[in-house]
């Protein structure tokens, strides 16, 4: 069976500068892929190329069996949804109206919302536990609540791939856990979740597959136990770490070793 996402020798350049070089990977429906690596490693660029926002300079990125660069925006929106680190909520729109925008790709400009559209929005509101905010102006919500609205909008898109580009970066523990829990629930429904993350322990806890990027190249990839090796992480992050074994997990917990620096 064709993997849902196939990336083959993909390179991305900004001007003359290469930010991603020769990356190859494939991922199936229902998996949770975490993209980790230091700042500037190329995580966001790779995710944006998968979403079709930026063009890759070489290689190929295929969603199901179609090259992403050949898709129209509406075709891409049915395949990929993306939640970014920063969410902008427009003035004068309720939460429901903002989430309903996810359904525009499914109908022409003159058609009003169908029953399927309304049901998809209701499901997303319930899944993200924000039904009580449905008729509240989106700009009146807190940062964490707005990020949940962004996740709900991505869910309402009903696409096969959900991309989280450091979507939990500025959130408190409660909202971080909520968004990752919702994302894991999506994998149970056959959605492929790809998340760029900075927290190695959260990545290990939620991901089925981890890709460690360093300077635009894949430094390691595999299961959390394969990738989260202290010696590899210390080399890539250029930081000393302390590993604490976890009783029920095949990978340890990592914390910064403040007494040393490499």
């Amino acid at each position, binding site marked *: 069976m064709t993997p849902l996402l196939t990336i083959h020798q993909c390179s991305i350049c900004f001007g003359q500068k290469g930010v991603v070089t020769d990356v190859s990977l494939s991922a199936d429906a229902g998996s949770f892929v975490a993209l980790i690596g230091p700042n500037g490693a190329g995580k966001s660029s790779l995710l944006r190329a998968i*979403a*079709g*926002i930026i063009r890759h300079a070489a290689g190929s990125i295929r969603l199901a069996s179609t090259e992403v660069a050949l898709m*129209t*925006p*509406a*075709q*891409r*929106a*049915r395949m*990929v*949804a*993306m939640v*970014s680190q920063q969410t*902008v*909520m*427009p*003035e*004068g*729109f*309720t939460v429901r*109206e*903002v989430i309903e*925008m*996810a359904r*525009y*790709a499914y109908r022409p*400009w003159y058609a009003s919302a169908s029953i399927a559209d309304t049901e998809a929005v209701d499901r997303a509101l319930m899944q993200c536990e924000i039904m009580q905010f449905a*008729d*509240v*102006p989106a700009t009146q919500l807190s940062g964490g609540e707005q990020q949940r609205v962004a996740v709900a*909008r991505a869910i309402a*898109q009903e696409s096969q791939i959900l991309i989280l580009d450091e979507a939990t970066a500025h959130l408190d523990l409660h909202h971080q856990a909520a968004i990752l829990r919702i994302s894991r629930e999506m994998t149970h429904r056959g959605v492929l979740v790809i998340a760029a993350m900075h927290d190695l322990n959260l990545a290990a806890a939620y991901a089925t597959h981890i890709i460690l990027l360093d300077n635009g190249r894949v430094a390691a990839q595999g299961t959390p136990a394969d990738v989260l090796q202290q010696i590899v992480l210390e080399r890539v992050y250029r930081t000393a770490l302390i590993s604490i074994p976890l009783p029920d997990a095949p990978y340890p917990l990592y914390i910064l070793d403040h007494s040393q620096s490499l």
Partner: protein
Amino acid sequence: MMQRLHNRIRHRSRWIMVFLICLLSVALAGALSVGSVAIPFSMVAEMLWHWLGGTSLGQFPASAVDILFTIRLPRVLLVALTGAALSASGAAYQGLFRNSLADPYIIGVASGAGLGAMVAVLAGPVSWFGTIAMPVGAFSGAIIVVLAVTVAAQRRRERATQDMILAGVAIGTLASALTTFLMIRAGRQAGQLLAFLLGSASSVGWEAVRIVTVCIVIGLTCLVIAARDLNVLLLSEEQADLLGIDVRRVRVLVIFGATLMTAAAVAFHGLIGFVGIIVPHALRLLFGGDNRTLVPFAAIFGALFLLSADVLARTLQAPVEIPLGIVTACIGSPVFLALLLRRNRGL
């Protein structure tokens, strides 16, 4: 409380639209009865009824028929159409640039249209081409500015919108400077040109009404088609792309439609400030930001606003007529400041 009002309005937008069209019809008839020769409102309504029905107007005084259908009706219709054009295009530009202070002036469209129309006036009108020369000149000026702004902003696609505003301010200023230069060089025609720039509707005919109507129908159709996707563009261009919106198509539709409407308005009415900012801004505070209701509402309220301003312009110092641009600025500035203060206080 404001949100409840927004929700109620959204659910009843079609009925509100019908009510507003009725209100606009009454306002049109009211504006037609006011002037140096007063014609009773009932007579105006009756004459219009017969005219629309295609029946004879022989029972009415010939002078009243002449004043109404040769002078006032084309003028009043043109004023309403101009208000609708400037206001709807202002609402669309504000959505496109995600800036509630944007209007046809912000990307230099109005200044470019003014310059183009002025060049057309100075070139000298000839027969039928004379009437069409002004909008053609205005649209040419406006579209040259839009193209120049677009080319100037194309380098950094991710910041295209901000760059367009900056380029528009620069190019619009250049167009205004050239307009002033042409006016200084115009000699005896300078007074006439100044009146045009300040917005004067004193000498218009049916030809102008027809041209502006065609431009507005085409322009408004483009904006109505783009209105839903313009809502998504408020999130960001990147988000709109992710949600399946063809951002380039929306941008082309909005810029073409709004530019066409602005050019048509400026060609026959000169530069009228504030309508494109104040009406959409007030409507956004009252009715929310959904462009599907905002754009058509802005067209109707813009027509109502400019009709009221025109009645004041004709009656305040009758028989002397005050340029419409001065009246809209005098009403617009304080109302706009009040709206800004109200918003800043979070009311």
